[in-house]
């Protein structure tokens, strides 16, 4: 699946504005012929990842207990751009009251958990262990 998505990406990347409809058509025809249309969702998801990777776009999910202020969001975006060396950042905000406070950043499968919930859990673990 990864290879197919990569192939599609490479085929479409170099196509100019005029060629694009034709190229897209070819891709769909190819998928149809190879009986891969039923797996289009999977391919699309991978394609998205590949595009993000090649264009150095970063998809970041930020969960917090309450909506974050714009200034915080901006600072967060700046820091993350520096940390991951990305060109642009796509912030997806998510409200999760169970976090109690603070926020949690998810980049792909990496998680930076700065929520109060995590801190409480850690404290609990520590107290059980040292007892």
């Amino acid at each position, binding site marked *: 699946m*990864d290879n197919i998505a990569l192939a599609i990406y490479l085929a479409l990347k170099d196509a100019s504005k005029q060629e694009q409809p034709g190229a897209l058509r070819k891709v769909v025809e190819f998928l149809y012929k190879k009986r891969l249309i039923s797996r289009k969702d999977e391919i699309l998801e991978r394609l998205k990842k590949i595009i993000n990777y090649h264009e150095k776009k970063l998809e970041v999910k930020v969960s917090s207990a309450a909506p974050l202020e714009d200034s915080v969001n901006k600072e967060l975006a700046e820091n993350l751009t520096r940390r991951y060396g990305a060109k642009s950042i796509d912030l997806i905000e998510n409200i999760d009251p169970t976090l109690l406070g603070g926020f949690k950043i*998810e980049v*792909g*499968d*990496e*998680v*930076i*958990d*700065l929520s109060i919930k995590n*801190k409480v859990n*850690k*404290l609990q673990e*520590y*107290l059980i262990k*040292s007892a």
Partner: protein
Amino acid sequence: MSTNNIVENLKREIENFSLEVKAEKVGKVLEVFDGIAKVHGLSDIKSSEMVTFAGGERGVALNLEEDAVGVIVLGDFSKIKEGDEVKATGRILEIPVGDSLLGRVVNPVGLPIDGRGALKADKTYPIEKVAPGVVTRQGVDQPVATGIKVIDAIIPVGRGQRELIIGDRQTGKTALAIDAILNQKGQNMICVYVSIGQKDSKLRKIETRLEEGGAMAYTVIVSAGASEAAALSYIAPYAGVAIAEYFMDQGKDVLIIYDDLSKHAVAYREISLLLRRPPGREAYPGDVFYLHSRLLERACRRNEKYGGGSITAFPIIETQAGDISAYIPTNVISITDGQIFLETDLFYKGIRPAVNVGSSVSRVGSSAQIKAMKKVAGTLKLDLAQFRELEAFSQFGSDLDEGTKRQLERGKRAVEVLKQLQYAPVKTEHQVVTLYALTKGYMDDVPLEKIKEFEQKLTDYSERNAKVFYKEVVDKKMWSDKGEEELKKVIEDFKKSFK
């Protein structure tokens, strides 16, 4: 403790608590079945790395696939749901080790299961470790006194050796191992008994037995029960040897028993098939040889420069209807330094321990045998071999010459002497005296049914009267001419009074 004190303590504890925030690798559970979890994400995970599930369960990543990780769950997998968070720890599975483990029964992840409260262990050891290399090792030259006459005399085991105990069900494999543990009292030996997929009732019996014999003081039991997940059975022997390695690192000698590796292989087969690894012979996966070789290679004797200490391993294998050419038995036979064969036929003939002396061997143990034992056992082996040959032959006719008859009688007595009751280990010096009397012909005119009584009374009598001989055997491991003269006289005196 007053409430104030508790609050004070708690305050101090909390002050010591430091919170480090770091980026963690997190995955999501795709599916859970039969103790296996497929996890999406966890991109940088290593093979055999430990992971933790949201509910606190631990797992080990075994299969790293293109877009999922196959994790075996150590413990209850019924609480894990699809979509649960899974965290990578960056470490391979570790278990707590320490002197406080002595006398305890723990499960393969190091949690106590004997109901005697929490374990206080400040150290942890990884369960998978590369075996000590050639430069750190030393030859096997110190004996393990098992207290079982037939083993100590004919199939001697040395410290650092791996000796397989193999036989059908109900032939006394575990009994042999437990006797060996019981006899380690005062022998400067730590014992680890790893029970893999055994009935809990059997474990209970063993524990009680060891307790009664005062053996729990130097013994650790690691148990993965039959009702628990296959993953626990799979890691149990590695956990056991990690505990053994801790004691070896303290310069101690350790005896470890894996009871039994057939069930271990079966548990690993189950895991492998569930992880969709291709099956091979008898449906075992391709790396089942490595499974046991890397485990048994960790048994060793280390030289002084690297801290000394040793791990002697007694793996146990259960055969089906005496078939030792099945896959797992042949594998383990080729890995170990010898095997002790137990046979059903002998067991029902009343020869217990039911050791088949002809096909049992010890490839390195003879250099570890004490000199006195070597002296008396050398001729014993010959006596028994000739006896077996003549026994078959003598069934055809009764007209045998005197020499043959004598050999037959000697052989019968040797077999009788090597019989031994369960839980009755015999001290090395007593073994030497008994075998001396046997091989020098002092038992030839004792009726067969009185041999046991003779042996019992002779050891009692000689210990009281042949003090020089005993002292020499205990201290110098060999007798002198003076000691031998004394013993001869004592045996002759004893025979006069024995009727």
